[in-house]
């Protein structure tokens, strides 16, 4: 859910009001309610699909179901509007040991700092024997001494979303099988992707992609080492990233130059002059729908993605601090929420794609189609994409500090157009130096 970090701050305000209301409504004392139920407090962010379904945030209402199954449990859930906001609460709770929550949802970006204090989190291995994850999800959630401290929820297999109405105007195929072939099917490459983009933009004069940063985000996670090498050397200013930067900035003319999550970006989704393709993690379908309007029928998704390996963008884990007074009960809840059955329910209700291969194979998931995407078989498409994901890049403490500087470097060329690619790269090199 890395990409979904900044939702509108309207939601901040709204969630604060609701947090305030629920704080007044509950009559809990410590970790027991007045009638003796055990209270488990959980913090998630954006939309994990656990809550009651609303128009803006679809959900499978899992907490109510769990409370029904376990009448002695009461779940108090807080949904932060962005992972940044959730992280601030997480940091202060963990560093002071205040136990604000018993279960914290964590973003992939938090792992370097969680691993540094791995022993402050509970080992979930014994509780999650019936859960089912691919290796890389388990590996990310495991600390240096081999304890499983994070239980994987969803993952972000990425496919290619495209505007079939704009493709049609440009004389490109609109059928998702033909689009798959157009981009090269299983052998799709980034060179081919940009070549098609150049043809599209030259013919129509319209932007092909939303911004360079979004494409870069999908490109870089296909590598095993991005900004830092596995022996913790900074390689961000060496050839690997520089080549990627050059390829991207050479194609800056394809970009609409609208920063992801900005109002301009939101307004582009149903515009006749909007961008034509979007690198689309499963969960982002919700955002596309929200911005384009549920009745808009221009978007489609093809079972293809450029690059040598599959792309995972986002994905989350649930963790429990060792100091939680109800950690056994919390661990049972975490195991239940992340087991294949519940993961399927979440995908059916919302679009968060299950990390569990077993869940991916269930008929509810595999046969899901999305009428917003012109009845695309999203279950099958994202499962195929997930299968190509073999790893995520090596991430250490420096990774995301450098990442934000790299994003800014692309923005300076693409969105704010204030520097040439060479000037911006020079500044990026200096920025990386200053981070030490």
């Amino acid at each position, binding site marked *: 859910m890395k990409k979904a970090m900044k939702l509108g*701050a309207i939601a901040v305000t709204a969630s604060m009001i609701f947090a305030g209301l629920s704080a007044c409504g509950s009559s809990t004392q410590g970790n027991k309610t007045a009638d003796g139920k055990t209270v488990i407090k959980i913090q998630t962010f954006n939309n994990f699909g656990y809550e009651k379904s609303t128009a803006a945030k679809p959900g499978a209402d899992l907490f109510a179901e769990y409370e029904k199954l376990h009448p002695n449990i009461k779940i108090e859930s807080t949904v932060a509007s962005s992972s940044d906001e959730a992280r601030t609460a997480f940091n202060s709770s963990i560093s002071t040991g205040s136990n604000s929550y018993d279960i914290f949802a964590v973003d992939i970006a938090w792992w370097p*700092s969680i691993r*540094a*204090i791995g022993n402050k989190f509970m080992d979930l291995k014994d509780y999650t024997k019936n859960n089912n994850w691919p290796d890389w999800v388990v590996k990310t959630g495991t600390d240096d001494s081999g304890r499983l401290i994070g239980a994987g929820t969803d993952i972000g297999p990425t496919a290619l979303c495209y505007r079939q109405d704009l493709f049609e105007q440009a004389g490109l195929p609109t059928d998702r099988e033909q689009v798959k072939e157009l981009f090269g099917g299983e052998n799709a490459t980034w060179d081919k992707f940009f070549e098609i983009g150049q043809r599209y933009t030259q013919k129509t004069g319209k932007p092909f992609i939303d911004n360079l940063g979004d494409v870069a985000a999908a490109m870089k996670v296909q590598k095993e080492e991005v900004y830092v090498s596995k022996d913790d050397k900074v390689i961000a200013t060496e050839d690997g990233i520089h080549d990627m930067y050059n390829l991207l900035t050479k194609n800056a003319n394809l970009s609409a130059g609208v*920063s992801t*999550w900005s109002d301009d970006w939101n307004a582009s989704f149903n515009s006749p002059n909007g961008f034509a393709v979007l690198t689309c993690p499963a969960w982002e379908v919700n955002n596309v729908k929200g911005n384009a309007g549920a009745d808009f029928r221009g978007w489609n998704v093809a079972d293809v993605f450029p690059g040598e390996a599959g792309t995972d963008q986002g994905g989350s884990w649930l963790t429990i601090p060792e100091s939680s007074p109800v950690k056994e009960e919390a661990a049972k809840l975490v195991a239940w929420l992340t087991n294949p059955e519940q993961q399927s329910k979440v995908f059916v209700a919302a679009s968060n794609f299950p990390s569990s291969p077993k869940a991916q194979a269930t008929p509810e998931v595999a046969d899901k189609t999305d009428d917003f995407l012109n009845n695309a078989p999203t279950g099958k498409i994202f499962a195929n994409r997930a299968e190509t994901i073999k790893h995520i890049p090596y991430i250490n403490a420096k990774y*995301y500090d450098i990442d934000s500087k790299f*994003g800014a470097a692309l923005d300076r060329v693409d969105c*704010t157009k*204030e520097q040439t690619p060479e000037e911006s790269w020079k500044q990026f090199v200096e920025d990386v130096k200053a981070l030490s």
Partner: protein
Amino acid sequence: MSEKQQASVASSGRFAVFSYKATPYLYVAPFFILFLVVGLFPLLFTVWVAMRNYNTITGDSGWAVCGAVCGTRDQSLVGNFQWVLHQRDFWMAMRNTVSIFLLSSVPQIIAAVFIAWVLNANLKAKTFWRMGVLLPYVIAPSACGIIFSQIFSDKSGAFNVLLQTIGLAPIAWHADTLASHIAIATIVNFRWTGYNSLILLAAMQAIPTDLIEAAVVDGAGKARTFFSVTLPLLKPTLIFVILNSTIGGLQIFDEVQMFNNGTGAAGGANNQFLTVSLYLYNLGFNKVTIGESNIGRAAAVAWLLFLVIVLVAVVNFSITRKLADAETRGKKRMQKKAQ
């Protein structure tokens, strides 16, 4: 009366004196105890943290170290300060903060004095106008930020659409440094001008009418009355308003955070509108890079910001006093001449 009784009266007398003397202090004690706990202690603790190698997650690990940017791994009390002063981002943030402060406070206070002066005249539906100018103040700063960040969107924003319909080039609100400062200053001014006007209006109404009348009888025009009578008498209130907007202006955060609009570096791709508070927040609370003294460095930024605010406030205070004094002296000279 026995000796015993006398002693008891005397002692109760001593108690009465004590309680008479101590009671006022007891009454003000709650504020000072609260201030000690939530004000002074954090303030002093920040000094401590600013000198330590302190990470939000892993905690305190000895005296601060400046690191590679200073070319030294030695521990020192000022390591965090040195690191901060070596950061280009910090100086950009300082520049932006001062620029946004000037662009907001100066026009805002001049406008506020003018609006107060207009409101002080005999208007119809006085209360309506007075409430009207205060109305933006009820909107929360972040809400203002959201509204204006939509108006100032680079492509779909109302302002740029308007400019384009009348045939002008759109303004790059998020790319151009000065444009972004003006946009943010607009958000601040929208919210605070009315508030300052009302405070100044209250001060204007406290000016005795006979002074104004005397000036009018002496043949002073509207402008002359305003500059020679009203403005000097507003001095104490002006000092208050200016100090307040100095403190608030240099700490600006919400509006800038909301103005960012979208992902990417908060403060702009090239730090166009990164302010010191935003820099502090990013350093201390958003990034918790393990192995770095993130909260220690943020504490150092907080102290540097504090020093700048004190400096600017002192300068503003003395300028305001001098200006107003000059007015009064000028008036006295005139009186002497008249004699």
